[in-house]
């Protein structure tokens, strides 16, 4: 089944002369690590991997690929959980991790310009002490790149108050598949013309290769409060979330872990989470110190009136304080903690209207029981973005089948209650089959037309995100299955 391209031998030497031999991987054993990203169910080894170090090199690479008719796919740190960087059908993988300079930081005008391979947390570190930060902080921020964040419109735990990546990207430089370079947006707001920046963010690599990103900078909060609410049931914790929103409080974060997740995190980090609790809720508010005390009192009373207790209440001035970092390390490493429970896991990224959280969580429990699959949950309760983590052993084909079925049913239910199949991970290859459930043929035709405007030959990230259209290789699944 794998549609492996046979590369013209000339292409490898041509690419080598563009990026330099030290920035090209040709041997299969070197390329093997690039066979998948954080989505491990489908794999395919790219035929060549290149690491350009400049926009000009990216232009050279895509032009050479275009001349040879060989598909190419951009990749950052490979933390995608939806197969966004899978080299479907082989071709050239363009790794942007060696374009990693922070080109400009301008605190007065509140922007920074970075290359796509800059790791999210590097920018935050570079800004330390300036009074500003880059707001989007996906859980993988220690590894994921800003280019990847732009491709998938990444979220993270603080999106409820601060928005997602697109809300913080002012402009991008995009190398189109034909090698021309588009400058969309920039440090100035409201340039006349379409909001191409808004369209390009979240393109999952299907429009071209982003080679530069202008992001806005957000003032640091003066202070914050982080609470650990402990509840007997997920329902009670969800009621508390509703109560907080109804009280007119917009927390910086509202993160929930269910019991299996609490146990996993506790086993890994010994943070002191109560392992008998049905759910813990991390509630964070930030802003000016003068306004926080009353909010804190309201939150504590809402937690208690929903049968919960406040196990920890931290008052912080910066997000560097040890107690603060400990809580978030536990949360952001939740996926890693799962490694202790199961050889493989697959996480889903569905979204439901927040008020439907108790329903979807009951549904997930039932699905897990029906398919005999263990499922742990950690999620962004404030935006209704769930992350059920399905535990399995990828060596067992029957478990793989059951995990895929269970995932499917969960995402179907998200659609049924008016939500979406992905809040922040992207469609990738994983969820393409859901697109016709979310969108009509006319909606999808409009999206295909847009992709064709940027990527007419379909060589850039083929068979991703939007099903159908030009340059589409007919296939049911890419590469080989992990279980094969």
């Amino acid at each position, binding site marked *: 089944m794998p549609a492996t391209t046979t590369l013209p031998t000339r292409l490898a030497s041509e690419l080598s002369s563009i990026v330099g031999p030290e920035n090209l991987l040709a041997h299969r054993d070197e390329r093997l690590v690039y066979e998948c990203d954080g989505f491990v169910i489908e794999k395919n080894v790219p035929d060549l991997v290149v690491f350009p170090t400049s926009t000009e090199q990216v232009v050279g690479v895509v032009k050479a690929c275009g001349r040879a008719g060989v598909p190419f796919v951009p990749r950052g740190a490979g933390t995608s959980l939806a197969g966004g960087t899978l080299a479907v059908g082989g071709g050239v993988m363009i790794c942007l991790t060696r374009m990693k300079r922070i080109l400009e930081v301008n605190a007065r005008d509140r922007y920074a310009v970075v290359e796509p391979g800059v790791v999210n947390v590097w920018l935050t570190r570079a800004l330390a002490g300036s009074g500003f930060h880059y707001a989007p902080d996906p859980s993988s921020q220690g590894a994921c790149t800003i280019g990847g964040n732009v491709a998938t419109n990444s979220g993270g735990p603080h999106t409820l108050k601060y928005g997602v990546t697109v809300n913080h990207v002012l402009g991008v430089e995009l190398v189109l598949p034909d090698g021309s370079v588009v400058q969309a947006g920039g*440090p100035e707001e409201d340039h006349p013309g379409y909001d191409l920046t808004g369209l390009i963010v979240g393109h999952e690599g299907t429009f071209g290769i982003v080679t530069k990103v202008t992001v806005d900078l957000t003032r640091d909060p003066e202070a914050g409060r982080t609470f650990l609410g402990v509840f007997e049931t997920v329902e009670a914790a969800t009621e508390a979330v509703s109560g907080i929103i109804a009280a007119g409080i917009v927390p910086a974060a509202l993160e929930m872990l269910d019991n299996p997740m609490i146990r996993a995190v506790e086993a890994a980090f010994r943070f002191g989470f109560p392992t008998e609790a049905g759910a813990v809720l991390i509630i964070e508010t930030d802003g000016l110190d003068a306004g926080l005390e009353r909010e804190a009192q309201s939150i504590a009373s809402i937690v208690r009136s929903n049968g919960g207790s406040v196990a920890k209440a931290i008052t912080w001035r910066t997000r560097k304080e040890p107690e603060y970092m400990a809580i978030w390390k536990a949360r952001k490493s939740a996926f890693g903690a799962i490694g202790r429970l199961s050889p493989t896991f697959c996480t889903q990224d569905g979204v439901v209207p927040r008020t439907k959280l108790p329903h979807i969580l009951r549904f997930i429990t039932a699905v897990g029981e029906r398919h005999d699959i263990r499922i742990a949950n950690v999620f962004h309760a404030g935006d209704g973005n769930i992350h059920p983590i399905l535990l399995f052993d990828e060596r067992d084909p029957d478990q793989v089948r059951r995990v895929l079925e269970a995932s499917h049913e969960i995402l179907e239910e998200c659609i049924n209650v008016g939500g979406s199949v992905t809040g922040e991970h992207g469609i990738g290859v994983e*969820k393409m089959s859901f697109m016709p459930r*979310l969108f009509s043929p006319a909606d999808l035709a*409009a999206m295909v037309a847009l992709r064709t405007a940027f990527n007419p030959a379909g060589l850039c990230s083929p068979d991703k995100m939007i099903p159908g259209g030009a340059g589409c290789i007919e296939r049911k699944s890419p590469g080989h299955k992990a279980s094969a």
Partner: protein
Amino acid sequence: MLDLSPPVIETIALNWPETSAGGVLGDGRSASATDRPSSLEELCEIVARRVGEGHALYPQGGATALDYGGIPRRPGVAIDLRGLARVVDYPAADMTITIEAGMTLAALQKTLGEQGQRLTLEAPLADRATLGGIFATNASGPRRFGLGRPRDQIIGIRYVDGEGRAIKGGGRVVKNVAGYDLPKLLTGSMGTLGIIAELTLKVRPKPEASALAWVRFRRLADAAQALDRLNTSGTRPVALELLNAPTARKVGGGAGLPVEEWVLVVGFEDNAASVAWQLDRLTLELGRTDLVFLKDNDSAPLWSALVDSQADEDAPLTFAANLKPSAALVFLGSIDAARWAIQTHAGNGIVRGHFQDEANFEEIAPEVDRLRAEAVRLGGSLTLPRCPTGWKDRLKVWGNPRADWAIAEKVKKALDPRGVLNPGRFVGVI
């Protein structure tokens, strides 16, 4: 495989109507007719039929900005969306609302207000301006500094394309990355990619307290210094408006506020304890004892005046320059403050100037050229949101062509291959 090719319809050459009996399109152009759909289905049917008849389509809302943009290029019908004004879904606890595009901003705010919520978006003439129009034109107000632009509030859209098909993008949940971000693309697209029929928006709780501080300066350099200082202020303003004397008189006159050459208006919104602290802190940071504070209900008229003054209907010509915030302050130094009423979203680098004299083309044209050259030199652009029709081609209402307009034209061709949506209105040949 999806069929992308539009059905072939013979194009009929139509003439411009001789009277405005069928309605107006703006810029002195008359509509062949005005259609008033009252449902999405009816809108789709009208579009398909009118395009079949050879008409171009000119969507309209509250008609508060009919003359905005380029001149309508070919005859067509006006489509008045005000009959689509229903709330489709308002799950207040999810902090989202889905509405039809013909609803006015004032009506929406009233609905939200009943649940203690609001849309954090402003536009002039809110009792007439529709949400469809506001999003199509990317309108905003002073609060954009702290609370975001239209692109930050929109999460879902339904629009009708030039074939009469309803197209959906985004969804109704606050976080959603399925499919391309059509809501962002349509925002600010001037009705040239689709007729916006329905919007899903993020809403917020109303703040407990609101205040405006009125700070006077004799010299621009002093105002600029204060703004530099406020960039790292201990406070967190949601609005930073820098006005010259003519604008300050206009917006503050009613309240009897004292005016000098420059006035900086600083807006705060949060809970009461935070706002009170910020006003004290601002006084301390600026080292001034003559600040005037307007609090809560007393601040409402000035907030509104600051929004409405963006669209000065008496001015013959209005420019808008978009710059980096620090560059905007440099740009202000190049404007003749006696002849232009100036309002700057100082935190966002947006400068608006309304010409205060009788418009005389020979005099104003070189002035626009000079200001545009200065804006471009500083890295920005200069557009003309308001301009007499006869001057539009010469003065280039959208400014100098930008490199990304080439791809914008490809986007236009992809979504409106027959060019029936608002032809002539937007940048380049769009």
